[in-house]
């Protein structure tokens, strides 16, 4: 019956989650509030000590400090890996059993939780002096109906990393215009080097490329407005961006079989020196600076450039795709809400001080580049951030979950040339107007 057990475990897993979720309808909030001043805050995060060692260490330290400063309060942690974390949060929220403090994502992801009144507004914490320490535009991504439901911990932008050694070998220079960029692609392709590493099984990876083209062609507002329904997805700029993607695909700009490769597999093409360029969030920076597991020689040969301007386009060079990564929420039904808010505030503050130097995470709070010792690449990125003219939040984060699914699938088809640019925009428009 092994087979039965197998398939049951698999298909049943999802089904079981659906149902166990519904089984318990208790309204008890977690946490052992009350009782002679002893309080426990349940905290769930996604940095296991194995795969996110640095994050985990900082988190542990912050918790320890907080407990020391607040006698009588204990923090109980539960740690899960990213995907499992997402699933568990969903299941817990359907049974109204969320931890007091947990990790969440911005905008579209946040929406159902806020609608279900599961997260507590954190504006009181923000207005308690914390607001000024955040980089502009980061907490806004966590605001719904003018209330903020999460405090961001990370801020990322997506530059194009490139391998200086490969560029040098073929006499290439950082492109100033999109045409130059296309020339680079052509030269590399002719010399048998994969120009761009891409793992598009994960789909949001391809979305980054599309977003930049949309931005450079149609300006920073066109995509955002199409999503928030102030505009339309059938804007000619969005169709043109889709067309450019297919032109890149036709020029063999991406490594072979990208639609079947995960981001990690795509990335390894870049890390092995098989591909010359790679567009990814700044969370990759440690791999090019401090990560000892990556050969020094490789780390030294990596630089980054901004997505070049498209001739005749409305976008400018300093507009970035990116946005806050994860943030912290406080459960609306928590019995230790006040303590939980204290903890979140404490966490965000301490995190901002340590994240960038110790874990290489660019925090959503401002970093004083003068006072910290950082690798060159970090300083450059932080400077770019300071000079940025616009920050467009990742499209799949801006959209609600259903539309995001459509968007991501269409991105994959667009790159796979299974959909024409016209249908691509049309189907987006349909999905968006349905909501």
């Amino acid at each position, binding site marked *: 019956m092994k087979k039965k057990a197998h*398939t049951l475990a*698999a298909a049943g897993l999802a089904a079981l989650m659906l149902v166990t979720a*519904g*089984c318990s309808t208790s309204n008890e909030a977690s946490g052992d509030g009350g009782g002679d001043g002893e309080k426990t805050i349940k905290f769930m995060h996604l940095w296991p000590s194995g795969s996110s060692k640095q994050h985990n260490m900082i988190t542990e330290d912050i918790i320890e400090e907080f407990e020391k400063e607040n006698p009588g309060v204990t923090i109980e942690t539960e740690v899960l890996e990213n995907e499992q974390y997402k699933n568990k949060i969903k299941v817990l929220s*359907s049974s109204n059993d969320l931890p007091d403090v947990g990790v969440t994502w911005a905008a579209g992801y946040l929406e*159902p939780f806020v609608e279900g009144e599961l997260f507590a507004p954190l504006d009181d914490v923000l207005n308690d002096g914390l607001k000024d320490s955040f980089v502009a535009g980061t907490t806004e991504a966590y605001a719904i109906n003018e209330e903020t439901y999460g405090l961001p911990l990370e801020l990322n932008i997506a530059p194009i990393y490139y391998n200086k050694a490969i560029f040098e070998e073929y006499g290439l220079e950082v492109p100033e215009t999109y045409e130059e960029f296309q020339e680079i692609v052509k030269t590399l392709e002719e010399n048998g080097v994969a120009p761009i590493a891409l793992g598009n099984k994960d789909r949001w990876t391809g979305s980054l490329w599309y977003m930049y083209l949309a931005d450079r062609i149609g300006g920073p507002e066109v995509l955002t407005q199409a999503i928030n329904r102030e505009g339309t997805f059938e804007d000619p700029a969005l169709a043109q961006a889709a067309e450019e993607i297919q032109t890149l695909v036709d020029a063999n700009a991406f490594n072979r*079989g990208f639609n079947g*490769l995960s981001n990690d597999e795509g990335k390894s093409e870049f890390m092995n020196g098989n591909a010359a360029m790679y567009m990814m969030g700044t969370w990759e920076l440690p791999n090019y600076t401090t990560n000892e597991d990556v050969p020094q020689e490789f780390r030294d040969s990596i630089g980054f450039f901004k997505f070049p301007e498209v001739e005749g386009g409305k976008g400018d060079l300093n507009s970035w795709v990116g946005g806050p990564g994860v943030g912290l929420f406080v459960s609306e039904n928590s019995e230790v809400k006040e303590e939980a808010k204290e903890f979140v505030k404490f966490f965000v503050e301490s995190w901002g001080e340590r994240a960038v130097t110790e874990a290489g995470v660019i925090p959503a709070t401002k970093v004083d580049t003068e006072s910290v010792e950082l690798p060159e690449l970090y300083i450059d990125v932080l400077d770019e951030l300071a000079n940025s003219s616009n920050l467009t939040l990742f499209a799949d984060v801006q959209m609600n979950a259903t539309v995001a699914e459509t968007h991501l*699938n269409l991105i994959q088809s667009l790159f796979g040339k299974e959909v024409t640019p016209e249908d691509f925009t049309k189907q987006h428009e349909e999905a968006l107007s349905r909501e």
Partner: protein
Amino acid sequence: MDKAMSNPKVIMLYTLPALFLLLALIYVPIVQTGYYGLMKWNGMGSKEFIGLVNYSRLIEDPLFWSSAYHSFLLALFSTLSLVGYLLISVILAGKIKGANTLRKIYLIPMLLASVAIAQLWMKIYHPTNGILNNLLMSIGIEEPPMWLANPDLVLFAIFIPIIWQYAGFYILIYYAALKNIPESLVESARIDGATAWDIAWKIKIPLIMNVIKVTIVLAVVGSLKYFDLIYIMTNGGPNGASEVMASYMYGQAFRGFDFGYASAIGFFLLVICLVITWLIRKVTATKEEIQY
């Protein structure tokens, strides 16, 4: 003791825990899933009763039907592969040299976790570094296929490891059934002048017909609700080209936040499995009981 065991009340008492578990963990959730299918529900917050809207949406959803088609294709191929397994088992159960070792080799894939199998085959299928494409390139094919990225190929590329994964399981079942056939039957046939082919075809296979029927049901139902390798290797992609019913359900629930619709899919999947099982039993029904 015997007396106690023949007391219906005692029997009841002993079966109650299992019955309770079965009810609580299987049947109640099934009913609940059907019920959630009637709701507009994002998995959290309040549910809104919308009647059969989810089910009618399901009937009109081309993505669901294409994933259902993929599931049925998988069921077809799994069933066809049974013929091969049967053949191998007949040979193994005959007295050939090394049968024992071969049997163990066939069993190994079954011992591997699905995740390990998926990782292994993803490496094999890798477009540039994979063994398969390296092999193809070494024999002069310049542009070997991109197995998991090509929407026309991906489904079949995944079927291979799925079918390979369960080879050991079915071979084991057939092998055990064949070994159960009394030696005397085979011997008397041989004395009557039957060839090896006759013995396999006219004696052994008819005798294990019941087992074969069970494996057909297992293969078909197992395929219809198949999930693991597809989830890991392609996540249903590119753009739904390898989506099956269970992965589509998962995607709707956990990526699309549409638990109401996902529940409807789950319930419908159960109904399909029940109907198909019933159909197979019906088609393969025979009156005579096999006795050795």
